[in-house]
């Protein structure tokens, strides 16, 4: 079958012109600014010596967090219009009437946005390599980190594509994608905290499965596991980070691993649902619901 034709076309269109270059430039600018700021702060801190590996761990952590946040903001923008945009532009039928399978259209769109994210991550590598200068960070940690980024990017991309196939408007799809992310990142924590506060339950373990769905929890537990409690992690979401090493919780798998498994399952389900949703001749309950919805927007031709 060769490379997915939708992926190729999307890459061609996305990489064309100044927009793609602009995004990369802006992205690197933000990351560099953060790196410079962190290094400057650490160097001017009279309590740390400049050859301390703490410097590089601090810089690494700061960069990792900023990059993670950037990914959470960028991927929805790259995917939430994937299918709704085609509907709005009336180009979807032209692909659906070809022999291309719906799932190929979905994965083509997903991998296009994932590739674009991967490009940003790779482009950030030189900035990350600055932290090598100070020692304390190995290639293993960076590989783990970038791998986690990719899993997160695919998952967020799947969420964006899911909404973009199920909603007519790109704006609605974008809002719901960010909303879902906000829920996963903060809503789950709120639920956990409420649970603990209201019912005076202090057994973290019950709370842990919910945290598996939380990308921030997974991410901070990864960083925590890489460097223990150092690097300012415990002040950033110390609750979830601590769980990674909480002796009561060791029976369970660490949040970052749980998060990766959760992400894989969620992505597979969302992509399958998306493919079913754009298949015009599928059978069953979804088809029934859809014809009901179509009736409401009944319009000539």
């Amino acid at each position: 079958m060769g490379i997915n034709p939708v992926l190729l076309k999307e890459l061609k269109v996305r990489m064309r012109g100044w927009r793609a270059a602009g995004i990369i430039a802006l992205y690197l600018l933000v990351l560099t600014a953060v790196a410079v700021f962190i290094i400057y702060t650490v160097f001017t801190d009279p309590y740390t010596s400049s050859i301390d590996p703490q410097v590089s761990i601090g810089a690494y952590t700061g960069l990792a967090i900023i990059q993670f946040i950037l990914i959470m903001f960028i991927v929805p923008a790259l995917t939430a219009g994937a299918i709704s945009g085609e509907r709005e532009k009336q180009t979807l039928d032209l692909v659906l009437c070809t022999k291309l399978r719906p799932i190929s259209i979905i994965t083509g769109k997903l991998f296009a946005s994932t590739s674009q994210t991967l490009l940003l991550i790779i482009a950030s590598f030189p900035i990350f390599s600055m932290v090598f200068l100070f020692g304390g960070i190995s290639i293993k940690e960076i590989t783990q980190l970038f791998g986690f980024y990719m899993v997160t990017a695919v998952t967020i991309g799947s969420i964006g594509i899911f909404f973009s196939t199920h909603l007519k408007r790109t704006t609605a799809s974008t809002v719901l994608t960010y909303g879902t992310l906000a829920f996963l990142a903060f809503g789950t924590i709120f639920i956990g905290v409420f649970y603990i506060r209201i019912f005076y339950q202090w057994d973290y373990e019950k709370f842990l499965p919910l945290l598996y769905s939380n990308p921030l929890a997974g991410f901070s537990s990864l960083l925590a596991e890489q460097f223990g409690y150092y690097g300012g992690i415990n002040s950033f979401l110390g609750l979830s980070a601590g769980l990674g090493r909480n002796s009561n919780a060791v029976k369970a798998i660490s949040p970052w691993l749980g998060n990766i498994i959760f992400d894989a399952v969620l992505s597979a389900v969302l992509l399958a649902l998306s493919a079913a949703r754009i298949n015009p001749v599928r059978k069953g309950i979804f088809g029934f619901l859809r014809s009901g919805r179509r009736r409401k927007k009944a319009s000539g031709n």
Partner: protein
Amino acid sequence: MLAIRNLNKRYGRFQAVSDLNLDISEGEIFGFVGPNGAGKTTTMKIICGLLRATSGEITLDGTDIIQNSKSIKEKIGYMPDFFGVYDDLKVSEYLEFYASIYNIKGQERKRITDDLLELVDLNSKREAYVDSLSRGMKQRLCLARSLVHNPRLLVLDEPASGMDPRARFEMKEILKNLKGMGKTIIISSHILSELAELCTSIGIIDQGRMVISGSNAEIMQQVYNKKVVKLKVTARLDDAVLILKEYPFVDKLVIGENTIQAGFKGGDGEMSRVLSGLISRGIPVVSFAQMDGNLEDVFMKVTRGEEEQWA
């Protein structure tokens, strides 16, 4: 080649297509005519696998189109009535994208792109961005796109709609070319005369029902004769036919078991002369009625506006 049996499509409770039957043979150019909202687009989308029928069966070369949708889609080329184009793609890249979907690569892809651009007369625009083209050019490009995989059946939904007379003429020339290439084509329009010279057969659809279908000549005659009378006799059918043929303004007869459908060029006066002629010569006529107004209504609708159009 294409056979549609008892096709029904409901949108909720609204019946958009009712019990539609249609047979199209290889090489035929079938004109699908009906006023707006008649169900043409719905039927065509179902043929192309873009919409699920409520009931009914469609086969292409004897193969069910739902069960074998992938192989069927390789045989069908579809041009929708409304469509968009990707901005940020050049004309040649646009065609190459659709060709790549069908695994057409390298030299062959280039050759096909060249041929198609030649066919739709867009050679000079191959490096232009698709969204910079005029509407007529986009429509031609979309037609070329529907041809990349060399389909045997083309389904064209109002390909000339919204075009100015010149663009319309160019589109017609291209379609004649395709006809010459031996493609089987289903083409829709809400104006009958637009398809007159192109089609080999015509079906007229109204409110989801196929009102009449047949060869181009048959349909044109029925439509433009305006009056069709259906008469029923209890005996002497052959004599009745002979008498009818004596009148110069009776120009077409469709003979059934004990019924005759007669096309009239004239008005009410002629009709009553025929009736009294039949009775005075002893033919046992039991009914003599102008055919249902429904058909005439449709004819009025699909022929409306022709004067403006071709003036």
